[in-house]
Structures are given as C-alpha cells and as structure tokens.
C-alpha cells in the first residue's frame, strides 16, 4: 500500500538521531513486547498491521509502540484475545500494578522456543519454472499500486535498473487483496538502480541503490512501456 511506512526518498525528517552507547531496550516493557511478539508469531506476520496504523499515529509511536499496537490488533483479529478484556485489564493494572498474571514457569517451553528462534528457516523454495531475467538484463519496475502489503517501494516504480543476480525463489509477500496471503513463489533478483535514474538531477554523485525485486514487479523495457497492461510474471 502507498502508506506512510514507504519512506524511501521522502524529505522533511531532519537529521539522523544518533544515540551514543544506546541500550538494546530503553524501557523494560520494550523487551517484553519484543519477546511477546516473537513468541506469538502469526502466519501473515505483523507488517501489514503496522502499515495500516493511521499516518499521524505511525509517526508519533515509537518503534516498540508500533509493534505493540500491531500485536494487539493481530491477536484480536485472530480471536486469541478480546479488545474489552484487554481494556479492562489495563484499567486494573493502571489502578494496581500488582493486578498482573501470576508467573507461569515452563522450562520445556523455553527450550523449544530457543530452538525455534535458532532454526534455519530459509526463504528459498523449489523453482517452479525458468527465471525470466538474467544478470545484466535491463528491467523496468512496473507501475502497480497494490492496496495491501507489498515489498515494492514506490520510489522504484517506473524506473529502469540492471539485474545483478538471482537470490532464489521466494514466496511473494504481497497481499492483494489486503489481508490475503499467497503461497506463490517467484524468482527474486537483486537489481541495481543508478542514483540519477531514481532521483534525477538531485542525485548525489556516484551513487546506486540495490534492491530486491520479485519477478512480477518487473517488466522488460524493450517490449513494454511503463503503462503497459502486460504482466511481468508471464512467461514468454
């Protein structure tokens, strides 16, 4: 979706806020949100929930507040918690910090969790055809505007780059329509875009951006124009 999260190339955010000797977590709750997130992962992931946070809130929330918000919304949608019971519990804990759950200790569960976090979960899947592009090919990024989750940053749309290499076949993460996952896998390429191609005369000297492109994001600039209806994933 063309959301506030798609920030590449935007102006107006000022200097990079560099904190020397920054702790991993600034507040204890941040670490707990992080751990809760990793221990209650859901198939669709949470990025779509973060991307639909209204823009004004997105910019106001800290990083861990975004994850907290997304986790709560995801768990409610999955039917695992109820919005009212959460609100009631918040009121209780605000009034009395001791109104939290009694600790549950399950060492076997900890062991299993750590094993899962260390598992080598490669995105690579079995190829189901021949990649359409090869290293050295010129490609144009298609002008698509999916309303759901997509991994194509808008600053690349319509621009021409050069395929560098094929990373492998990965599941397409886009949700079109929103909220609907697909199991389809496609070749994912590393594509190089020159700074001047992306940013015109404003580009800094001698700069390039490398970004990964699922095959259906791309079309061949020789055979199609930027407004072509053709589908870049179709096999020639």
């Amino acid at each position: 979706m063309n959301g506030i999260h798609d920030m590449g190339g935007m102006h107006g955010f000022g200097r990079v806020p560099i904190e020397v000797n920054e702790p991993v977590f600034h507040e204890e709750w941040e670490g707990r949100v992080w751990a809760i997130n990793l221990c209650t992962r859901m198939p669709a992931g949470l990025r779509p929930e973060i991307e639909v946070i209204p823009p004004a809130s997105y910019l106001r929330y800290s990083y861990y507040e975004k994850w907290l918000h997304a986790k709560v919304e995801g768990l409610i949608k999955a039917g695992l918690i109820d919005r009212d019971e959460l609100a009631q519990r918040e009121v209780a804990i605000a009034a009395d910090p001791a109104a939290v759950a009694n600790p549950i200790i399950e060492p076997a569960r900890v062991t299993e969790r750590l094993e899962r976090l260390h598992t080598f979960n490669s995105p690579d899947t079995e190829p189901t055809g021949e990649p359409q592009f090869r290293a050295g090919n010129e490609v144009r990024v298609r002008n698509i505007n999916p309303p759901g989750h997509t991994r194509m940053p808008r600053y690349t749309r319509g621009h021409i780059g050069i395929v560098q290499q094929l990373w492998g076949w990965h599941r397409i993460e886009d949700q079109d329509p929103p909220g609907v996952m697909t199991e389809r896998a496609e070749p994912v390429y590393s594509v190089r875009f020159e700074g001047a191609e992306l940013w015109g005369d404003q580009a800094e000297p001698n700069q390039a951006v490398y970004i990964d492109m699922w095959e259906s994001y791309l079309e061949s600039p020789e055979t199609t124009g930027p407004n072509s209806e053709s589908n870049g994933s179709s096999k020639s």
Partner: protein
Amino acid sequence: MSGHHDDGHTHEQSEPEIRTKALESLLVEKGLISTDEIDEVARLYEQDIGPMNGAKVVARAWTDPEYKRRLLEEGTSAIAELGYEGAQGAKIAVFENTSDVHNMVVCTLCSCYPWPVLGLPPTWYKSEAYRSRAVIEPRSVLKEFGTELEDEVEVRVWDSNSEVRYMVLPERPAGTEGMSEEQLIDIVTRDAMIGVTRVPAPASAV
C-alpha cells in the same frame, strides 16, 4: 530480568507499559506464552545476540582469506560456521567495503536487519530520517556519522526489502597488520557493519 517483580509504585506507569503488562497477563493466563519464555527471549536479544557476533565474523574474514572468500560468496553458511543463524538471518549476503566502493544498508519499508550477526537495530536505523534519506542522499547521511567520502568512491545502498538480509564487511584499517583475530574483534563496530562508518584505526596502531 522480569517485569513481574517490579513494584510499580516507584514510578508512573506509561501507557505502553500498562498495555504490555495487560497483554502479557492475558496471554499467560490463556496459556499462549509462559513468563520464563518471555524473560528468556528478552534476555537473549538484550545480552547474547548483538554486534559482538558480527565482529567475530569480520575479524575472521580479516585474518583468514579463505574464510573471507566463503563469506562474500555465500554469507549465510560462512556465518553459520561461527554458530550464528536463526530468525532474520536465514539468508544473509555480505558486501565488502574497499577504497573504491562503500556499501551501506537500510530498510526503507520497515527496519529489517540481520539479527543473528548484529542483534536488534539501533533507534537511528529505525528512524524516519534514516529510512527516508539513506536511499536519496546517502553521502549526506554518512557525513552525519562522520564518514566523508570522495566523489570517486561509489556508494552502494542496499535496501532490505526482501527476506535477504545484508551486512557490510568493513575495510580493515591500516596499522592493524600486527593485531590478532582476538584483538581485531574489539575494534569492529556495529555502525561499520551497517556501513555508515569505517572502522577507525586503533590509537595504538596509528
């Protein structure tokens, strides 16, 4: 660490803190998580998984040309040789900074980052300023980190939009030829492995 022994009366509870405690309480009571599971995962990312892992990869690559070749060719397996793998590191590609090419990593859409080697990202990496500017004005961003590059040096910005994660192999600073792998580990910085700084020559080596 544990949030459950915090008496809560010594400070004002913030809104996200209250919400987090409420959420954790519900999930524990429903049996969806255990308290020690949350304790341990938070501890893991706070203490065990961090840039000290990546520093060992870099120091090995600086001292072992054969390892460096494997690392640049197939990052994931070379990194796994040192025992670092898992969440957000299932496919890691490593790029070498040289006197001609400077690589730096960003995630404009989110804050994707190679956890097994660098841990969780610093706030600046997740900031709107870095995410928006790194792709359009990388040299100006680098200057804010004190990294000045001649125009002749090509800047390559890696936007982490797929499931591939990126790490930079910084240039080994001059004057460190006599240092051991163990000593080199100590001079490698997180920011150099993201590609926003160079590894400075240690004072003793200048």
